[in-house]
């Protein structure tokens, strides 16, 4: 795989349009977008379908709302008078949970794609890819005050639900990514993969704590840090009134004056986040919405191969 990805420049030359955010942005349907991206990716790499599922029974666990009724062990109910659900070892290749930030700050975009659009497309594409490989995929949409949770499933039809949830989401309000990560860590029963797609504009310490909890539970975690090109480069000029997207706060600045210190602070933030992720064995990928979407996916596949 490494050889494959080492030649990504070559592969991208022919299919770059598949990942160009400006091209992707013109596709209104998220499903089509995901398929578009994945097809593009697949046309550029050697197909390698992963197989070999295990369906060995491992244990029972108590039924909890959300579990499918068909998984209830009725025999055990007759014996113990309790609803128990069968657990199988290696039920799937992978259980992946997407944590996608749906705060107001994700709705920002100066270019062709907003951060939300970029994050949703990336998430959808990866989910599509994983489901094609019969991995179970779950989704948590992180909002200011709550989360929308779709449990991980490996059925093909589950993609529709994921895409619908992403499609229907309208990012707004403040960020709650740190809290969402903690909740996810509390709710996950089994080790798996957690894919965080967010701009991480929350309390860095809280975010780090959430990620740490996920890691402590044995999850493999990859963070896709999505930022807009304008946030990364601060291309503004002259006197400007800058407004916060999540609050009513604003400040008038001389752009040329604040640019350098701003970029310094931002870099400090990025470096800190990257360092915290590295120290916890978390893969960290900084993505600009101006970058082709395949970069994130390739990075994911590389990480995935490493994790196996």
């Amino acid at each position, binding site marked *: 795989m490494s050889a494959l990805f080492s030649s990504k420049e070559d592969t991208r030359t022919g299919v770059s349009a598949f990942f160009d955010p400006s091209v992707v942005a013109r596709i209104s349907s998220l499903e089509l977008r995901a398929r578009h991206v994945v097809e593009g990716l697949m046309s550029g790499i050697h197909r390698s379908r992963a197989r070999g599922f295990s369906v060995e029974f491992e244990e029972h666990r108590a039924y909890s709302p959300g579990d499918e009724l068909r998984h209830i062990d009725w025999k055990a109910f007759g014996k113990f008078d309790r609803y128990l659900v069968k657990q199988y070892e290696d039920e799937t290749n992978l259980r992946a949970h997407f944590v996608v930030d749906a705060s107001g*700050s*994700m709705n*920002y975009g100066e270019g062709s794609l907003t*951060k939300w659009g970029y994050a949703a497309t990336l998430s959808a594409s990866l989910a599509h890819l994983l489901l094609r490989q019969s991995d179970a995929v779950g989704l948590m949409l992180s909002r200011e005050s709550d989360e929308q949770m779709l449990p991980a499933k490996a059925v093909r039809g589950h993609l529709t639900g994921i895409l619908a949830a992403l499609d229907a989401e309208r990012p707004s309000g403040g960020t709650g990514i740190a809290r969402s990560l903690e909740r996810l860590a509390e709710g996950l029963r089994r080790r798996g993969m957690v894919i965080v797609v967010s*701009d991480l*504009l929350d309390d860095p310490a809280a975010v780090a704590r959430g990620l740490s909890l996920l890691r402590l539970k044995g999850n493999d975690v990859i963070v896709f840090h999505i*930022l*807009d090109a*304008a*946030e990364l480069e601060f291309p*503004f000029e*002259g*006197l*400007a*009134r*800058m*407004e*916060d*997207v*999540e*609050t009513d*706060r*604003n*400040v*008038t*600045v*001389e752009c*040329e*004056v*604040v640019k350098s*210190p*701003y970029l310094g*602070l*931002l870099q400090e*933030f990025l470096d800190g986040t990257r360092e915290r992720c590295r120290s916890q064995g978390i893969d960290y990928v900084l993505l600009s919405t101006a970058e082709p979407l395949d970069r994130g996916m390739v990075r994911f596949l590389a990480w995935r191969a490493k994790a196996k």
Partner: protein
Amino acid sequence: MGFQFFHSVLLWGMGLVLLPILIHLLRRRLVRRHKLPTFEFLLRTQRRLTTRSRLRNWILLALRVSAVSIVVLLSARPLLQMAGGESGSSWSPLHLVIVLDNSGSMAYRAAGETRLEAARKAADRLVRDLSSSDRVTVLATVEERVEGPPAIQRRDQALARLAAIGQTDAAGDPAQAVRRALESLNVPADRRTVMVFSDFARGDWDQVRVQGLRRLTPHTQLQMVRVAPEAGTDDVVLASLTLRPWPPRAGAPFSVAARIVNRGNTRKDRVPVSLFVGEERVATAELALEPGADGGTSFRIRAPEKGVLLGRVELGPDALETTNRRYFAASMGQQIRALLVDGDPQRGLLDSDTFYLASALRASPPGGDSPMLVDVVAFYELAKVRWEDYDFVAACNVGQWPARAAESLRRFVENGGGFLLAGGDLAARSLPGGGWLPAVIGGPRPLSPPGHPAVPLELQDHPVFSTLGRNPGRFFSRVRVGKIFPLSPIGPARSLLTLADGTPLLVAGPRGSGRAAVWASSCDRDWGDLPVHPVFVPFARGLVDFLGGRAKGTASMSLDAGQPLEVSPAAAGRDEAVRIRTPRGEEITLRLESSQPPSRPGAPAAQERSAPPARQGRFERTGQAGLYQVLFTEGPPQILAVNPPASEGDLEPLSDSALRERLPGVQLAFSAIRAGESNPARSVEGRTDLGPLLFLFLAGLLVVEGMLADHI
């Protein structure tokens, strides 16, 4: 120290300083709005930068406002008024006009130098400090009149001119000097300064009124520099001399009375007063004078038998020498010898033609004798007359002329005598020859109604009317003339009196070395009533003086220093030039100009050729008090006593406000220099052009602004 502006109206442009402020405010209003999710970082950045950024913005705003202000100030051309004269940096050349008061009062001495010397020293220093591109005009309050605008000179020429201005005893004409200074400002120059160095003594400046100064622009500064005001006004003045009898009679006692005024603030116990005749002190007296009081003393001497009496009265030395002496001069002149020819001796005394004229000429002034010796003869005695015994002959109603008498009379006139032909019924029968009289005489003609004599406007100051003051015609307005000979002037002859319609009544003109006149009416009351009017006496004596005056002595002439000395045609005769000897012994030649009036159309050319024009001249260099002599080619010199005007003793200076009233419409600057100051120019307020300084400051400002604006 203060500011002035060349173009003060441009200071309204100072409103432009609002421009950067408006731009600053508008820019704040027109800011673009951007949303930014990473706002928190920006906020933290801004918090860190706010203080510095605000400070920088305020400094930039201040710099820009200052830059606009300086540009406006540069346009208005500010001048800093400060001590130190006219030196200093400037954009453009300076035209400096120096008016030096060299009137008598400037001779006031303090700290070892006169006020004029102190003023000259300051002016000299100012001129030396000027740059080579600057120009200077130097004027004096007492100087000869020069046509055209004053000369504009380079520095070295101006220094020479300054050195040449001498102290005079005359009253200055500061108004004229200021006017000429302003005339000289018509040359193009950005900076123009008129500096008047004077004591501003009331005697010279009280009557000054210079109007029309409103045309002065702020380019022009009129600066009044008081010279040695600390020296005060302590002075004893010889105010006047009274000489009696005047003119003095040869060999007779003669008194000289002097009036002396103490203008100082201290009592003068012993003021020595001396009388000099020639260079010999002949009498001395002492006076005690309270401050502000005046007193007098009188000397009595005997006039010489002949020749000229020259003398002076002199006070002891004090701060102002100018007012310490007064001169007098008198020649023991001969009396005019007049011969009156009676054409009708049969008539009674009071009806005689000669009675009125003889009475008028014999009248003597109070305390003196008549200046004329009058003889009366009948017409038939003319053959026995020794013409050389007389200076003047009058023929009153003479109708018969003995053989050769008329010819002798003509020669008498051509040899310098004076002749008057007066009318009358007898005179109509015969005339003393034809062709040499100044007028063609017609037959007698009655006037109905009677006419009144009038003096032509251009002859109001003719010597004949010299004793009648201005507008002599008013004395003749009630005189009635009932019968005349019609007269037609010939050649250079002029009608000295006419009727209202211009008909000549008295025609006079030169003949050879003498003068002849024809009076169209009679000398008695037959043809008019002139002999019984008061004007008859001064008129008759003026006429005789004029016609026969060549022989009369110079009783006295006195002028105020600075007044022009007129050399009259009567005195000059046919001289083309005279020499004038000044009190310093210099002899200056004065060219005389023809006083001939334009010839009349139709006048016989022969007549014009036979009467060479008389000449006159005007000598203006009488600034020095003393005795001046006018030396003619023939005859005795004319001697004039030139004295300082009494006004020069009034040293009290005019205040600043009083001077401002006298020079309205212009802002005057005042400064003062002290007597004996080593560098008096340092005390003179000058103007420094702030343009170069402001320009440098603006350049620096823009550099700082540029650096600060780029430093983001």
